[in-house]
């Protein structure tokens, strides 16, 4: 039981982490809460499902296909909507991204129907770890999260684009003076963040096994709790907060009952913020 809880928790946490880190970098450059973020996770799952069912691609190929599809969608939304949020008041971002969320969710429902669909793909053979049977897919998810967080950390510290992202997050006015093309950085960061959410969706689908148009909302809402707990703009803190939430949820689901799982994030969030208003890992770092 304990091993199950731990394995489930870390897997779920890694899934959340991949979604949340996208949101946290987007928040960093744009100072806007992305209420549509879970929809890109949903689109990632749908993209992979569509590639498998309709184009008959193997699961392995469906993952990059999903990421590319979502990347294109995110680029369009980045140019049409997100760029306009630069220098816009906070509430504008909330309403605009809520609008985007409604559109994405309901277009998917319109195109594919509102019912649950079965996801057929992935590697679900169990592997024995410490006496517990863990599906290969779960191991892949955890490894993917670790690799991507490592890569992100490197990118943000070492590459020109990464440094520019941090610079925009820290002082957007100074960036304009240095001749930085801020709208381009914002769009790039947005596409990157959405692609990470899509990847997370495509990787998780074999574990959850089903998908439907409204699945993104719950993820969006949990992601909020994670990025605030992790200290907004803190990449490493996001991973830890996501794992922590995954573990707590899985413990609550295992010992108290599944129906309480979705409230855990916010009970924890409110508890954490009561004691530590800056989040668990509140280095003042942006990225």
């Amino acid at each position, binding site marked *: 039981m304990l091993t199950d809880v731990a394995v489930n928790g870390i897997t779920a946490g890694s899934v959340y982490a991949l979604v949340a880190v996208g949101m946290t970098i987007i928040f960093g450059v744009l100072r806007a809460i992305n209420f549509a973020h879970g929809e890109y996770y949903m689109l990632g799952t749908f993209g992979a499902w569509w590639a498998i069912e309709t184009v008959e691609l193997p699961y392995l190929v469906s993952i990059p296909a999903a990421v590319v599809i979502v990347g294109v969608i995110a680029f369009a939304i980045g140019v049409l909507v997100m760029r306009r949020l630069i220098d816009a008041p906070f509430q504008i971002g909330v309403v605009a991204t809520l*609008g985007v*969320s409604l559109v994405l969710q309901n*277009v998917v429902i319109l195109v594919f129907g509102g019912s649950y669909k079965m996801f057929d793909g992935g590697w679900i053979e169990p592997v024995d770890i410490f006496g517990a049977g863990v599906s290969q897919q779960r191991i892949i998810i955890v490894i993917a999260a670790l690799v991507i967080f490592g890569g992100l950390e490197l990118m943000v510290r070492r590459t020109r684009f990464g440094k520019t992202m941090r610079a925009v997050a820290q002082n957007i006015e100074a960036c304009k003076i240095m001749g930085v093309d801020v709208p381009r950085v914002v769009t790039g960061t947005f596409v990157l963040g959405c692609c990470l959410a899509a990847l997370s969706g495509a990787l998780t689908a074999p574990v959850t096994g089903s998908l439907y148009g409204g699945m993104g909302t719950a993820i969006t809402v949990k992601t*909020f709790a994670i990025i*605030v707990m992790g200290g907004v703009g803190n990449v490493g803190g996001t991973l830890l907060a996501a794992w922590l939430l995954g573990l707590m949820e899985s413990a609550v689901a295992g010992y108290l009952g599944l129906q309480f799982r979705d409230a855990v994030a916010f009970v924890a969030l409110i508890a954490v913020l009561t004691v530590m208003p800056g989040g668990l890992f509140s280095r003042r770092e942006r990225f």
Partner: protein
Amino acid sequence: MGSDMRLRIGGFAGFLALLLVAPAFLGEYQVHALIVSLTFLLPALGLNLILGYAGMLSFAQMAFFGIGAYVSALMAMRWGTPFWLNFLAAGVVAGVVALPLGIPALRLRKYSFVMCTLGFAVIAQTLAKNWVSVTRGDLGLSNVPRPMLGLWSGGIEIRGITSYYYLALGLSVIAVLAFLAIVSSPAGRYMIAIREDETLAASVGAPTWRYRMAAFVLSGVFAGCGGSFYVHYYTVISPTIFDPYYGNTLLVIVLGGGVGTLGGVVAGSFIFVALSEVLRVAPDIRMIAYGLLLIVVVFGCPEGLLPLLMRKLRRPTHAT
């Protein structure tokens, strides 16, 4: 300024007169739509208070609304208490619940506050779903008694749609007057000062946090009262009331109508309810159209529809 004030009072009086005679010219369905608009008006006024005057964006409004609805329904069903008492109790309970949430949440940065209040709605929904012995879980409560207008027991039962409409209108007028009283009181002016410049307001000794708390609690009271009316009109309530959809609608009403203005929020309630009713003709694309509209409105007139309209109206008179 004086003519501006007269324009406003005139506008409100004219609008109220229109609403008073409206049922004589409208069908049952349109009157129902007006009642829905008035139902949203109360929580929207509350949101306007906390967002427009204290500068904090709250998603807890619909949670307070739902809490008020449950409280009012349960009181009427279990104890048979009269409507006025249920209505007040709904407001008071929602306000009291806001207090412990506000204590940690209002100290936070703006976006953390948003997420805390959103989380509160999720927690409230989980509670409504799982506290089966009281709320009957996902089934919800049905056959909630209709409002009884009487001192204690008996009195007039509100049944027909027209009587509901006038009850809603009466309550809304009271709420609007209460809102006006709040924002024109010294406390209201402090709230505006805090919104404009928090550091400055704090440096002249305005106890920022206390005023924010007052705004938050009052926003809960408005929403709770709204919930009470809602539940006695529809006579059913279930945990779906806590769904994000309703909270979003409120946000659209307040931001779309004109945050920080009274007229904007009143206009917003009618416009957006009317809009979502109109969109019902195309149920497949209703939500898509709604979403697109949100995006267009927020970029097209970020300060809200009414302030835009007022400016358009005022400009020619200025030029002459």
